[in-house]
Structures are given as C-alpha cells and as structure tokens.
C-alpha cells in the first residue's frame, strides 16, 4: 500500500507576517500631529515621527506658533499606568497653586498632564544626551516660533523602543507665554512645577500629540519614476533630414525658375 504523501507544514504565523510585510530598514515607526494643549492658549501645530531600528531611535519634529526666541523643551512621554493620551481641559484644575501662581485653574502644568501621558522617557534634544536627565536642558532645545529638526542617533532601552512601536507614547512640546510679554517670565503663572528655579511659562506644555503606530513602513523621500524621454526635442534626426530634403526640393525649383526666367 502506498504511503500517503506527507503534507508540507503550514507556514508559521511569523513567516506569514514576514511575507505580508517585507522587511524594511527600520523595525517600525510611530507618528502623529501635535495640537495645542487645552486651556493654555497656544495657537500652534506640529507633527512628529519616531522611527525605531533595534534600540536606535531617529525622529523628526516640527512645530509652528511657539513663543519666538525662546527654547522649547520637547520630550517623549510614556507610562504604563498612564492613559497614553493628551490631557483634557479639566486637568488644569487638579493641582494646587504653585509659588507665585495666582490663577492655577487657568494653567495646565506638565505635572497635571502626567496622568494622561506619563513621565519623560526621551528628551528630544538637538544634540547630546537624550535621557530624562536632559528634560530641562534648555540650551539644547530648538528656539521658536518655528522649530524643525531631526536626529538619527538616539539610543533607547528595549522597553522604550517597544513602547514607541506600540503607538502609545506621547510627544509634548513645552513653553507657553501666558502674559504675552514675549519671554518666559513669572507673571501670574509663578514658578515651574518641574524646577522652582524656572518660570512655569518655560515648562508648561504647549503642544501635545499621541504618536500612533505608522500604518506602513515609511519610505525615505520621493520616487524616481521617469528618465525624461518626453522632455526636450525628440526626433532631431527625422526633422533634420526632412529639413534638408525640403531645402533641396526648394533649391531645385528655384533653379528651374531662374532658368525659365533666363530663357
């Protein structure tokens, strides 16, 4: 009796996923728009993209409408126990007044937002250290009103890499000029909840956005789809030869006419 052929083993789930999404250079990325934090009155916007390859993070960050000529701290926030969202307006009423703060319910501080987005896991500095220790390194953040920068060399832990890829981290850009005096000042806001040596205006959150998992493996740049055959003059040879023939024919006729005139 013939033995039945052994069925080929079915593809493992991992193998099927690999076929479905061909390997790209990065493990994945997360991205999102930045919108004004409620209550704090910033009229601005922005976008961020976080790309992870192993434990290396590269990011792009752009924002507009921030206080001019002032540094804007920016961080990736995450905490497992947080809601992984941006704060809602009622968060502004949760904390007591800080030193020098006359109307605490009109300011949504970084601390008041923490239950929503968690603590700092990456400082999005323009150079150097990117750990939470650099959270207030104001000399290594970009200056408003418009910021746009990228880095490709940020080392993170495996945990943070996974958190980013999960689409649950939040990017927060800080710095709010409540009294519109053109600088970070004590005004009615008083001291910062993060460091009493700084004005609260320097550290309160201005823009916030959840970095959702990218829906595709993000390509780099544009596409080279064309080599210019339809640009410029084509058929030069045909036009040239045709032109010579035209001239030749015209010359013959001219000579005949000349001869006829002369005869």
């Amino acid at each position, binding site marked *: 009796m013939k033995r039945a052929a052994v069925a080929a083993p079915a593809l493992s789930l991992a193998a099927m996923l690999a076929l479905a999404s061909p390997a*790209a250079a990065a493990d994945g990325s997360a*991205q999102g728009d930045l919108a004004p934090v409620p209550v704090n009155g910033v009229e601005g916007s*922005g976008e961020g993209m976080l790309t992870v390859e192993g434990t290396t993070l590269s990011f792009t960050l752009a924002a507009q409408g921030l206080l001019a000529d002032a540094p804007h701290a920016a961080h990736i926030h995450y905490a497992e126990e947080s809601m992984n969202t941006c704060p809602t307006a009622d968060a502004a009423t949760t904390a007591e007044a800080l030193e020098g703060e006359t109307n605490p319910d009109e300011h949504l501080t970084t601390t008041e937002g923490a239950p929503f987005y968690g603590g700092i896991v990456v400082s999005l500095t323009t150079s150097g250290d990117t750990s939470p220790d650099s959270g207030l390194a104001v000399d290594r953040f970009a200056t408003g009103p418009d910021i746009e920068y990228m880095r490709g060399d940020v080392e993170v832990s495996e945990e943070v890499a996974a958190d980013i890829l999960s689409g649950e981290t939040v990017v927060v850009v800080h710095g709010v000029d409540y009294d519109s005096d053109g600088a970070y000042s004590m005004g009615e806001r008083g001291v910062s909840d993060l460091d009493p040596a700084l004005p609260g205006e320097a550290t309160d959150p201005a823009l916030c956005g959840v970095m959702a998992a990218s829906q595709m493996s993000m390509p780099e740049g544009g*596409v080279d789809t064309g080599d210019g055959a339809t640009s410029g003059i084509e*058929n030069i040879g045909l036009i040239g030869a045709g032109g010579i023939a035209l001239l030749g024919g015209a010359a013959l006729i001219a000579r005949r006419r000349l001869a006829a005139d002369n005869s």
Partner: protein
Amino acid sequence: MPDDAGPEERTPRALRPGRKVVAAVAALLLLGGGTAVAVGLLDQDAAPTSPTAGASAPSPSTTAGALPAPETTTPSEAPEPRIPPTELSIPAIDVQSAVTRVGLNPDGTLEVPQPGPDYDKAAWYEGSPAPGQTGPTVIEGHVDSAENGPSVFYDLGELAAGDTVDITREDGSVVTFEVYDVQAFPKDEFPTLDVYGNTEGPELRLITCGGEFNSDSGHYVNNTVVFARQVQA
C-alpha cells in the same frame, strides 16, 4: 540655347535630366522632406502635465489642518483584510494597467519598476496597506522611458478632484477611490508625512515624476502625487 546656367552646361544635353524629371524630383523632395519634418514635429511628445493644483512644497502649517487626524483604532473594529491589488483603472485619463509589486531599496527609498516587461505597469508598494485597508495605499508608475516614450502615469498630472480610480484586488473585488488633491513636491524636500502619513480611513496615493527634467541627474525634479480616499460603492 542652354536650359540651365552653371556647371550643367558641361553635361551633354542628352544626359541631363529632363524638365519633367527635375520637377518630379523637386516634388518628391518637398513632399518627403515636408512629411519628415511634419512627422518629426507632430510625433513630438509633450512633456508630462504638471498638476494645476500647485507645485510648492507645503509648509508644516498647512499640513496639520489639511490632513485627517491619525487613526485610533478601537479594539472592537476588525481590521480590513489585506488583499493585494492586481489591476488599476483611471477612466478620466484612460489608464488601465496590471499592478505589480515593489519594495524598498536598501537605502529606504521606494523601488521603481525595472526595465523589462513590467516597466510600464503600475506598481504597489508592498510596505503600504492593501487597497481598502486603513492608511494610504501607495501605487507608483513611471511617467516615461527612453525606449517607449510616455509610460503608464504620463497623464497623472491631469487628474482633478472628483476623478475616480478603480483598483481590482486578488479576490476579484473592486475598491473605488475618489481624488481629492493633486500636488507636485520637490524630491529634495519630499514631505514624507504628507504623502505617507497615517490617515483616518482607506486612502490611495498615486505617485509619478514631474516638473523640470534635470539632464545632469537624468531625473525629474518633482514627484506628482494624487491623493484619493475610498468611496463606498
């Protein structure tokens, strides 16, 4: 008496072409030459159309409001299945094409269809969602080739809001998208998030080249991108 002046005086009369022959040759040269010039000029391909919607790279301030907010999928939504595209049809510009597949080059840029039988076919970027899935389905096509002139997406820049694109999938189903924007972006300032960024629902990006042709680099300087979103049948 001589018929013609000049060197032909020396040719014995019996060997000179008669008037009728000269006239016929003149006529042939004029006809042939004229036809050649006419064909050469008429056969001239126009440069590919640049989209009328505007050619400047959008500043970041225009992007945040221009695009839908990123999708947050609720756990109860079952994701659309991934069914690859096999054919593409764009009635407004009379384009029908099979759809092949491309991936990324080692440097992370999009592969393009290679010279050969698939060169003039549209190509789906496999790293992007399949048609009907949430996110931008990316399909590219050449604008032209040295061998054959205009290619599959030569007329892409003529599309306008309201035009439709039908994508047939491997299971025979058809997904229809409606164009809502056509833009030209410089390749050296390509707005990655505008083109490939997350979307609320299923969308489509058709990409080809356009703008000025740089003969030093051998490439067009812009990409023409058609933005479309799925419409329910």
